[in-house]
Every structure is written in structure tokens, then in C-alpha cells.
């Protein structure tokens, strides 16, 4: 059994089997997992915002869907993954509070999910599993050995995708 490596909010990391990756308590943020099944190498990024170009302070690339996915791919390639083999699994993007007003800030989960999908599509990376939206938090764990993404939520059965 390898290590379970933690990825924080606005953070990213990579690993190779037998290690695994996890991010705890995803709310409106989106967790994106990239996987090279041949090398059994995986990467995970926990993005908070959809678009780095709309934000002045954007040095932390892992914070945004657009730059975070690029940075993750670079890091994976540097440990031997092949960009052309990557597939993706994504989770998160919830709306944690049932806001009544139409404030843009409140649709952030949905926008994070959309932006992540668009970015992956533009890179030609296929999303083979997705658990996004709704109104609850998720903890995810990814095991490169099996390619399984485990999604845990409060009061719900474990979901394996």
C-alpha cells in the first residue's frame, strides 16, 4: 500500500502507483484527475476559479481551471506520463448554499465545472467519469493502480467511478 498524497485547495500534485491522490471537502471547487493508465501515473488539481485571465492576481496557476490543467499536464509529463494517453475524471462544482438572489458569485461551482470541461476539450482530453453539481461537498481519492476515483459525501454511499 502506497501513500495517500493530499492536494489542498488551489493546489496540485502527481503520483505513480502504489501511491494515490486525495483532496478533502470539495465544495464549489472542482477536482480534476488526469490519468495515464499505461504508466499508472495520475495527477490531481483542486481549482477554485474558472478563468485566470479575468483575475489580476493569478500567480498561483493551480487556482484556475485554465492554467491549473496546463500546469498539471506539465508536471505529469515530467514524471513520465504521455499527454496523448491522458484521460480525465472530474468531481465537485457544487452550489453549497441555496442562494435566492441571482448573484454571479453563487453560480461559481457550475462555472468551474464548465470551464474545466471546456479546457479539457480544447486539449483533446476525454472525460470518462464525472460527479459534479448539486448541493453537497465531496472528498475524492484516486488510485492509479486501478484507475478508480472514489467519491465520498456526507450521508451518501461511497461512489466509485
Amino acid at each position, binding site marked *: 500500500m502506497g501513500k495517500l498524497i493530499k492536494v*489542498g*485547495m*488551489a*493546489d496540485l500534485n502527481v503520483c505513480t502507483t502504489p501511491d494515490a491522490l486525495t483532496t*478533502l*471537502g*470539495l*465544495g*464549489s*471547487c472542482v477536482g480534476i484527475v488526469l490519468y495515464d493508465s499505461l504508466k499508472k501515473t495520475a495527477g490531481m488539481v483542486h481549482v*477554485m*476559479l474558472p478563468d485566470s485571465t479575468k*483575475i*489580476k*492576481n493569478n*500567480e*498561483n496557476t493551480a*487556482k484556475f481551471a485554465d492554467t491549473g490543467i496546463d500546469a498539471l499536464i506539465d508536471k505529469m509529463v515530467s514524471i513520465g506520463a504521455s499527454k496523448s494517453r491522458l484521460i480525465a475524471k472530474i468531481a465537485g462544482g*457544487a452550489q*453549497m*448554499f*441555496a*442562494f*435566492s*438572489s441571482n*448573484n454571479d*458569485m453563487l453560480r*461559481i461551482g457550475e462555472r468551474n465545472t464548465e470551464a474545466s470541461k471546456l479546457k479539457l476539450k480544447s486539449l483533446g482530453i476525454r472525460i470518462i467519469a464525472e460527479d459534479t453539481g448539486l*448541493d*453537497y*461537498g*465531496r*472528498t475524492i481519492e484516486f488510485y492509479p493502480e486501478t484507475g478508480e476515483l472514489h467519491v465520498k459525501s*456526507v450521508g451518501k454511499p461511497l461512489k466509485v467511478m
Partner: protein
Amino acid sequence: MSNINLDNIDSMQVDVLKEIGNIGAGNATTALSTMVNGKVDMNVPKVALLEFKDLPDTVGGAENIVVGILITLEGEINGMMMFMMEQKSAYRLVNILLGKPPEDESFTEMELSALKEIGNIIAGAYLSSLSTLTGIRIDASVPYMSIDMAGAILSVPAIEFGKVGDKALIIETQFSKDDSDVNGYFILIPSLESYGVILSSLGL
């Protein structure tokens, strides 16, 4: 107007922000003790500049299940006020207030809405004392409630901070009832510009 440089807050500014936490949380704690008809203690507030990944550790870890009551602030200052209680504490509080057996660990729809109202009153006590102290008008939204992992709940204010920086400045106060079966946190998260407004209002 006084400005806050997140990476270089002076000790005077920290002291003033702590005092704001003290006064706000003090009033909120008093409201809470009145409701439960018992003594509620609070800790010295913490003013912390935290990286996003460390934020959930202030409330017991990302997977700690909490009840979060969120009020958004508009007007002269913007930001959010969050009242957070561990789920177990929320059960105890509702049981005390509604005279239920202490071991009951469930919420009916009505109890959920009572809990939201309790959160509203407590957060309101915090904000109104802050408003009185500073002379700043604070328009608060209706309360929004979520019961979930602390990390997921805190992602909402964290994202707002994420738009302007890589860290969040929070004023956090922990409270607990004498027999420690009810405890939780008040967290005030003004927007960056609002810190300037608050500090100027107090002559800094």
C-alpha cells in the same frame, strides 16, 4: 484611507481586528447564552492570514461535519460572516432550545429552520455590535445554511478571496458552552477593501 497589505499587517492593525472580533463575538456569545440559559465561553479571537489549503484546519479539518450559516455583507463593507458549529453541537443546541432529549441526533424540517433562525440571531448580534462600534452601515443578507464538510462550506468564502489573492484574512473566535457539548466558531471575512474601511472608521 488605511490600507491593508496582506503580507505585512502591522501589529496595531492586528490588535484592532482582534478587538473587533472580541466585541462582535462577545455580543454573539451573550445572545447565545441567553438562548440556552447557561454560560458560554469564548476564546481570544484569532486574526489569521491563511493560505487556502490551511483554512479548513481552523475549524477542525476539511472533513469535519459542520453546520454553516452564511450571511453575505453588502453596503459600506462587503464580505461574509459565517457562524459554524460542529454537527453534534447543533443537535445539542436544538435539543436544549426545544426541550428534546439530549441524545436526539436528527433534525426535522422545522428544527432546521429553527437552527437557521438561531444562526441568524447570533450572527446578527455579532454584526450589529460591529456596526455600532465602527459607525459603518452593514447590510446583511438573509441567512443561508448548509450542513456538510467544513472544507466544502469554507470553499464559498475562500473563492471570493481567491479572486484577489492567494490568502484569506479571517477573524475567528471559538466558543463553547460550560460542559463543552456546544461549541463552534464565528468567522468574519470582510473583503480586502473592507478591512481598510473598518480600520479607517476606527481612526487607523
